[in-house]
């Protein structure tokens, strides 16, 4: 099973406060532990929403583009990683070790299960499965 671990944004990340050497080192140590355990598959940090955009599709073919920033800091994403583990509980245990250097120990992390091919059932046909296989091969 794969899980997405989402580090929620806060006022500092949204203000563009960059991590200190101390925090970068602590995250590096934490990520190294995850990689050595064979748990970590990917991980990235995101710039503040001021550098981003929102697309709204109205359902009738019209699209609206809104430039960032977006107001609700706590509902935004500041970074994520993808972990492989046997259960949600295992991921919870890993996340509990999150470096206290991050946001002075006041941080919110969301864990979400990633969909696998077999979850799509009969809707995944031989035809559309080739797209998935092709995607996995090239990315």
């Amino acid at each position, binding site marked *: 099973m794969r899980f*997405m671990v989402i580090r929620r944004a806060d006022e500092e990340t949204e203000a563009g406060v*960059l*991590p*200190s*050497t101390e925090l*970068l080192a602590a995250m*590096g140590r934490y990520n190294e532990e995850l*990689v050595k355990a064979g748990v*970590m*598959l*990917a991980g*990235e*940090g*995101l*710039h503040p*929403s001021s*550098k*981003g*955009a*929102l*697309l*709204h*599709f*109205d*359902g009738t073919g019209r699209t609206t*583009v809104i430039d960032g920033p*977006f107001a609700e800091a706590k*509902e935004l*994403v500041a970074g994520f990683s993808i972990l492989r583990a046997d259960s*949600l509980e295992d*991921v*919870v245990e890993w*996340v*509990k070790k*999150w470096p206290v250097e991050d946001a*002075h*120990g*006041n*941080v*919110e*992390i*969301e*864990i*979400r*299960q*990633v*969909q696998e091919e077999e*979850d*799509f*059932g*009969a*809707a995944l*046909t031989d*035809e*559309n499965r080739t*797209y998935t296989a*092709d*995607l996995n091969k*090239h*990315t």
Partner: protein
Amino acid sequence: MRFMVMIKSDERTEGGVMPTEEELTAMGRYNEELVKAGVLLAGEGLHPSSKGARITFTDGKPTVIDGPFAEAKELIAGFWLIDVKSKEEAIEWMKRIPCTDGVETNVEIRQVFEAEDFGDAYTPELREQEAHLRLATKQD
């Protein structure tokens, strides 16, 4: 430049409604276009938040709350990681996401940090460590 593009949840995705064969085919075709253009780096869909959890740290102490979480519109249902030349190019690609007729869809585009964005705080030793870790995850 890399961008993370997040498709937001709605009642359908949070209700565990899985995509139809038609939707999977349309999305597959779109993703294949992104792959052929050398734009797509990764892409995943997420199960509803009812299968997830949240961990809130207060002064270093974790509190675990099981899903589901109420605010469906602020949750993520899936994401793409893309490599393009500008935010404008990211927007142009993402305007073509196949959306279901009659269903409103919100998509958020966010720029991904690169090692150089962290400046001097990211010491040569730390950059080297990151490079090693990235290599190790690719070898899986």
